[in-house]
């Protein structure tokens, strides 16, 4: 099914955005987030961006204080996901202008809108930044 979840977590391990594409109970989410955040945050720059966890993989990338963690199936193309994270960040950058953790915190709904335009049902829907952002711009103008 491709992407199972997308998490944005800061250095302290606080979740700033969580979007799951398969249903997990709250306890499962809490446990999962705890485990993978612990695993990924402990890694250094010289290590690769992929962590195997249970029966799937985490592809992650760090931007300043914020970690983007994407859970994918084992046979997913890791680099494509890694660059998809960057595309997401660039898209947010274009909207917020130099996006930071606070933008995502205080504009949670916008971050969600963008993700909705980019990923659906665990698959990538759209990769053109202007197409992704146009509904949000419409809304802002309204």
């Amino acid at each position: 099914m491709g992407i199972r979840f997308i998490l944005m977590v800061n250095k302290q391990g606080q979740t700033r955005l969580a979007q799951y594409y398969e249903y997990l109970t709250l306890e499962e989410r809490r446990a999962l987030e705890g485990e993978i955040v612990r695993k990924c945050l402990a890694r250094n720059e010289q290590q690769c961006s992929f962590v195997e966890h249970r029966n799937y993989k985490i592809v992650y990338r760090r931007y300043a204080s914020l970690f983007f963690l994407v859970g994918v199936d084992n046979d997913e193309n890791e680099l494509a996901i890694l660059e998809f994270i960057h595309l997401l960040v660039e898209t947010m950058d274009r909207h917020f202008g130099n996006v930071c953790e606070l933008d995502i915190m205080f504009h949670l709904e916008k971050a969600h809108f963008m993700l909705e335009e980019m990923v659906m049902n665990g698959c990538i829907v759209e990769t053109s930044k202007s197409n992704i952002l146009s509904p949000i711009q419409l809304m802002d103008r309204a």
Partner: protein
Amino acid sequence: MALSGMRGLSVFISDVRNCQNKDQERLRVDKELGNIRTRFKNEKGLSPYEKKKYVWKMLYIFMLGYDVDFGHMEAVSLISAPKYPEKQVGYIVTSCLLNENHDFLRLAINTVRNDIIGRNETFQCLALTMVGNIGGRDFAESLAPDVQKLLISSSCRPLVRKKAALCLLRLFRKNPDVVNVDGWVDRMAQLLDERDLGVLTSSMSLLVALVSNNHEAYWSCLPKCVKTLERLARNQDIPQEYTYYGIPSPWLQVKTMRALQYFPTIEDPNTRRSLFEVLQRILMGTDVVKNVNKNNASHAVLFEALALVMHLDAEKEMMSQCVALLGKFIAVREPNIRYLGLENMTRMLLVTDVQDIIKRHQAQIITSLKDPDISIRRRALDLLYGMCDITNAKDIVEELLQYLSTAEFAMREELSLKAAILAEKFAPDLSWYVDVILQLIDKAGDFVSDDIWFRVVQFVTNNEDLQPYAAAKAREYLDKPAIHETMVKVSAYLLGEFGHLLARRPGCSPKELFSIIHEKLPTVLSSTIPILLSTYAKILMHTQPPDPELQNQIWGIFNKYESCIDAEIQQRAVEYHALSRKGASLMDILAEMPKFPERQSALIKKAEDTEVDTAEQSAIKLRAQQQMSSALVVTDQRPANGTPSGIQLSLVKVPSMSINEDQNMAEQGLSHENGILSKVDPQTPSADLLGDLLGPLAIEGPPGTDVQSQQNIVSGLENVPNTVEAAAIVPVEEQTNSVQIGIKAEWRAHQGRVVLFLGNKNTSPLVSVHAIILPPSHLKIELSLVPDTIPPRAQVQCPLEVVNLRPSRDVAVLDFSYKFGNNMVNAKLRLPAVLNKFLHPISVSGDEFFPQWRSLSGPPLKLQEVVRGVRPMPLLDMANLFNSFRLMVSPGLDPNPNNLVASTTYYSESTRPMLCLIRIETDPADRTQLRMTVASGDPTLTFELKEFIKEQLVSIPTALRSPMAATPAPPIPQPTSPAAALTDPGAMLAGLL
């Protein structure tokens, strides 16, 4: 209208952000939840704006990890709001908070449908997205035709159609029949001519799902995929905004090549040629560039192209080109590329011709086994495992053994299993195999399952040439100062059987063999003692002419164990004692074990069983799927290819029966040989099962026999508090008898690994399965995901990692619930992660004991208490009881024969491995009281340990098994009808503690 417009929300978010700690945060959140609840109660006065604001707050709180068990209705009701901002919030929050089984969702189905078929395309998008994310079967049945219509409609704009494609994908997964309707295949093929890249990207995902399900039907889409790839990779015929760092949508390229991997071959020569042209271009034209993003994106495409080339089994030249590329990748500095190089090389092993080229990179791969990054090490291990064959097995296995000493806990089990399998599959000669396994036991005994040493015994028994060698090796290991329990078992067995072949060598006379083995007896678990007794009997038999001194010594031991509380030990002692007095006839009875019938390695069989993959069929037939997934669902199905891949050791031909309990073997062997012994286990359960359940990959057993066999295990292993914990089956619900919960545990220092086996005995699935661990504060317990549903007659394994943080007697509880019919069933079970699991017996000499004892003077490090109401028991039983709790009694250390001194090491994260000393002074005149003194370097530990021991001495729970309780009564066989205990499953499980 954005969040910035919702001041209340911003205030709340910054309040939460400013909280100093978790408690403050919880207070703030609770306050907000209370507020929202009150506002929702009074819904009439709520404006749509306020509703929207509260619903966002709910989502925020939910994201922080707090339960939000109300307000769902309000979120769903926003879906039917007339205005876009409210509707949007309704849809987004609903798809975050609810799941497809939620009743509220079904209520909204009409509203959603109206939005989908309506004319407002923004509404259409919202509705399609939500259905695509959480739509269930109901949605599939009522919406599929509408969604299909939208997807192929010429009047619909791309922004709606791309969402319709992925929405349809969801509906297809929920019910494939609604999509596979007449004429859909042609429509699908037309969709691939789409110019808009958004629509094409999502349609490609849809196609992948459809093709993976039935590639034959979608044959006509194949040339279209090749065209798409040409359009992107060769012609670069796409709008600027879809190129990413100069690369035409890497994601669509990857997806398209993925779709192509679901078609088994490409027959049409023209299509094949065009595809290979594009692939060649990608393979040759991808250079390493400075820009990270561009580099990643182009390599994403390259790796997918490699996968496709491998899948298509291209010409040899192109294949070697691929291996050359991968060989380059596994040596680069960039860790991501190195990781992917290793991963793809493992996939490449499927292609038969390239193995030799891959072998050239062996040295580099072995280097990666020492990489600082565990992700890369895992890949290297998998690759080495996959590329191993008879020519390089020696090198590879020896590397694995070397790595074992430094590998982290998490990898050791996998590593040992893999090394054992490789050694068995590819052993160039059997003495090497014996060497490897003995080394493995020596270095990582905790991870060597019984199956592995059973296998050694089989090989040695069946190969006469090997016997003196193996016996000599076993003898060597016994000289080592501290050896693993498993090593004691295997050496004792081998020396019992074949020790006489060494008779002329120095240090190998029967007497010497006996005494070196007997030295180990005080340190072993009671499960090992039967093996030692058998060895003594065999040594006795081989000592011709009889040596009266040795005879008396061994008889003395038999005599001592004739009153042992462990039934197995007792029976052996009695029987061997009686048998060994029969003089010459002993020779026949205790003759060497007959050759084993040829049988399949339980190890390899297990490795195969784990390969059964219930998930969606993967495009890449990974040979290296043996990697252990941690939560796997195993159903009754067996791998289609029953024969093991790779070469079996031909010396032992492989039969169907599987190895198992050595003790049973011995017994059965004996009774069959001569019919003198009457003991034949009346209900020997499928012994196979036994092996399976206890092994490291323990999985399933045929339904129906479970309860019996599992109970058997309980009785068989009740007194094995160490490595492999007894597996318990608790029929949780008496009426339905629908669930079995089993446990396997291994403990090591302050860590433990527990595997919960959740078995569904019904013919219908168990749904809404929840398992939560409520750990006490001193344990860190990580439970892997428990699937929501357990398929009929399937068993799910859920591994738990337990870390002991500090001393405490509190017990972790498993809160397990599921839905059976319409009833929620809930059970709370105590997990056997108790204090004494983190103890390791240690023997202390008087010289060490007394200074320590004196240096720990007085409270709080040394505590003394007079305990009354002790269940009276002979001192020897008490010593056994202590030993069974891993408190090692040192006989004779205390000059007073009525006293008892014991020592142990306690492991936790906060304390260093800590020595604990215990002294018990009993009163021979009144056995119901005693004085207990406990000392350690940590006050909490001293207190907790003292209380723990007191609990064991004073009131022993009735459910506790006999050996631990040291009941003076004869050993009680495990009740076969645990009716009484059924009422309290917790008690059942507690019995195992």
